[in-house]
């Protein structure tokens, strides 16, 4: 066990931060919060899955995707389709002109279930689809783009356009997808009522445990050779390519992995909230997911999850009380984070000088010739800009 801990957490500080998060989410919230609020926290935590993916993708690998809402939505829609089919059995929908199909299809004069809905009658297929559909879509997009060395801003804009396409596409096909209202009125999962307080508690703990597995897994990836290659790609893409690594494949893999995590988050979101709609996967929610990550800290998995909790909590409390001020606050926080603490709130902790840190910095300074870059890998983010791979990669073509 200590060996495993050492592989996952590099420093004692990280292990303590993880322990504190564990305590907060698994003990303190369930004891002190009423079920309604606990359910809200559970909803915030489903964005944590997206944030963990973004830490790997954006913080570690330097690729900013503004389309993570797409994958969140794909996972969510897979789950919602299964739940909707279960909620529209022929007995409950007997007043419809075609019983046995979801109500919105009946309103749109569809007389049979569309073919692509058929497989979602099976739970195992749905669970498979929650992981596989987002990953496959991301793999295709990623492979097409990374193979041609599209990165940085171009990638961000293209993924943003994809988010727009998907949300408009779902919006415009009301008969097949529920349109703007989305898929609503979801009741049971394999006969188990997901709306009861008991079920909401259980689902909360299920998504917490899955999130912790994801956190540990991601931390493990970060600390392995793959994690170091990711950082190397972020900082000096061409050198990694010259060293014989298949940069496009590694990026595609990380993109697909992040998409898979987002899809899982989306499915858990649907289970806890009970609906899915295109408003959750469009451009603005996709950028908001990036904000959660940036505010918490784009380099730290735990920081990103804290960011999700803090920003969403702020959004709920402030937008209830001062709906006008909230957008100013959100915009202002975001500008401040980007300009003054690019590593987010967690990055602030690194600024606190510790006795040990001071010595090691001094030693590092003595060892390195003057003028060479800082030894701290967090400092070597695109912050100095000179080695930013994003825009250069395109200009080299």
């Amino acid at each position, binding site marked *: 066990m200590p060996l495993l801990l050492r592989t996952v957490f590099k420093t004692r500080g990280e292990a303590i931060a993880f322990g504190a998060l564990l305590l907060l989410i698994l003990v303190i919230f369930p004891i002190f919060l009423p079920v309604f609020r606990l359910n809200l926290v559970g909803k915030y935590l489903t964005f944590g899955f997206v944030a963990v993916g973004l830490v790997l993708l954006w913080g570690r690998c330097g690729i*900013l995707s503004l389309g993570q809402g797409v994958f969140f939505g794909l996972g969510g829609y897979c789950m919602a389709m299964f739940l909707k089919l279960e909620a529209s059995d022929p007995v409950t929908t007997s007043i419809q002109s075609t019983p046995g199909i979801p109500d919105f299809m009946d309103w749109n004069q569809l007389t049979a279930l569309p073919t692509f809905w058929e497989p979602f009658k099976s739970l195992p297929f749905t669970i498979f689809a929650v992981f596989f559909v987002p990953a496959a879509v991301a793999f295709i*997009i990623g492979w*097409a*783009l990374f193979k*041609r*060395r*599209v990165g*940085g*801003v*171009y990638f*961000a*804009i*293209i993924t*943003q*356009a*994809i988010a*727009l*396409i998907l949300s*408009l*596409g779902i*919006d*415009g096909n009301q008969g097949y997808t529920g349109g703007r209202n989305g898929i609503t009125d979801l009741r049971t999962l394999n006969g188990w009522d997901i709306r009861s307080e008991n079920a909401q508690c259980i689902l909360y703990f299920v998504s917490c445990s899955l999130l912790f597995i994801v956190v540990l897994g991601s931390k493990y990836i970060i600390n392995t050779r793959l994690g170091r290659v990711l950082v190397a790609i972020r900082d000096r893409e061409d050198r990694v390519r010259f060293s014989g690594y298949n940069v496009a494949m590694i990026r595609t893999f990380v993109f697909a992995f992040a998409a898979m995590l987002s899809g899982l988050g989306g499915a858990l979101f649907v289970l806890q909230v009970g609906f899915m709609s295109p408003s959750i996967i469009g*451009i603005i929610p996709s*950028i908001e997911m*990036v*904000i959660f990550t*940036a505010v918490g800290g784009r380099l730290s998995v735990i920081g990103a999850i804290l960011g999700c909790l803090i920003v969403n909590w702020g959004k709920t409390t402030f937008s209830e009380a001062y709906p*006008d001020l909230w*957008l*100013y606050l*959100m*915009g*202002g*926080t*975001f*500008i401040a984070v*980007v*300009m003054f603490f*690019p590593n987010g709130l967690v990055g602030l902790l690194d600024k606190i000088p510790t006795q040990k840190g001071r010595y090691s910095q001094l030693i590092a300074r003595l060892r390195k010739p003057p003028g060479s870059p800082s030894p701290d890998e967090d400092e070597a983010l*695109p*912050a100095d*800009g*000179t080695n*930013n791979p*994003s*825009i*250069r990669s*395109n*200009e*080299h*073509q």
Partner: protein
Amino acid sequence: MGEYTNEELQSILIMQGFSGLSLFSVLLLMGLGLALIFGQMGVINMAHGEFMALGAYTVYYCSTLTEKFAPAFGPYYFVAAIALAFVISALLGALVEWLMIRHLYRRPLDTLLATWGLSLILQQSYRSLFGAREVTPTLPEWLMGSFAIKEGLDIPINGVFVLGLSIIVTAFLILFLFRSGFGLRLRATVQNRRMSGAVGINTGKVDRLAFALGCGIAGIAGAAFTTIGSTGPDSGSRYIVDAFLVVVSGGTASLLGCLASAFGIAQAQSILEFFLDGTKGKVATLLVIVLALMIRPQGLFPSKVRGH
């Protein structure tokens, strides 16, 4: 398409093509500003749509003030309002560059996020200052009406005006970039920033002017926009993705590419919207652009400029 006769089809294509030209004008003006800023500084301005909305609001306020205090000036105010829209947006642009953008140069992804924060703030400001409902300025008489070219084929005057406006702005921009001292310095900075600094060009000042100019053109786009649709706090954000796609698919920093892709995107959208319905036409257009970008990511006319 089977149910249309050949002649009807021709009329539809001309009509839709012409209404596509209005969209083309707005997209072109948006895209020119974005391309200028992106090409010059590598800054992605997500708040560009809000600068456009600012231009549109300027025209609206000019229109209400004219109606209130100088109704005789009514027929002419629009031209002055366009100039004012340019000036106000450019001033705000210069302020934003000084406060925010200049600290973020060469961090394109971060400028993207920071300017998105700015766009949130601006949108909320518009909502508090001008109200949440959509507004339309009173357009002068001479902008109303249409030419009837032949039976069943009317060309609206405001469309012609907007098209003319965007052609004039593009021509001015080209003259400015290729025939003026500032344009020379700007192109030099884009090509080699360090060398330009070494030969005595104040690159910081060039950056600020370029950013202000880009934002000012967005303001003109907003003024043009008022003749086509009504303005609300979030009208800018409705065009921002399209404008980015114009810039990216044209090949960044290429004026010719911007022109060509704005034309292509606007026409495709306008014609497809007629045959499919609204959103489907838009989805089809966006899909085609994204697929084209996957095949040819450098855009139509890639710039040959080496890295900075």
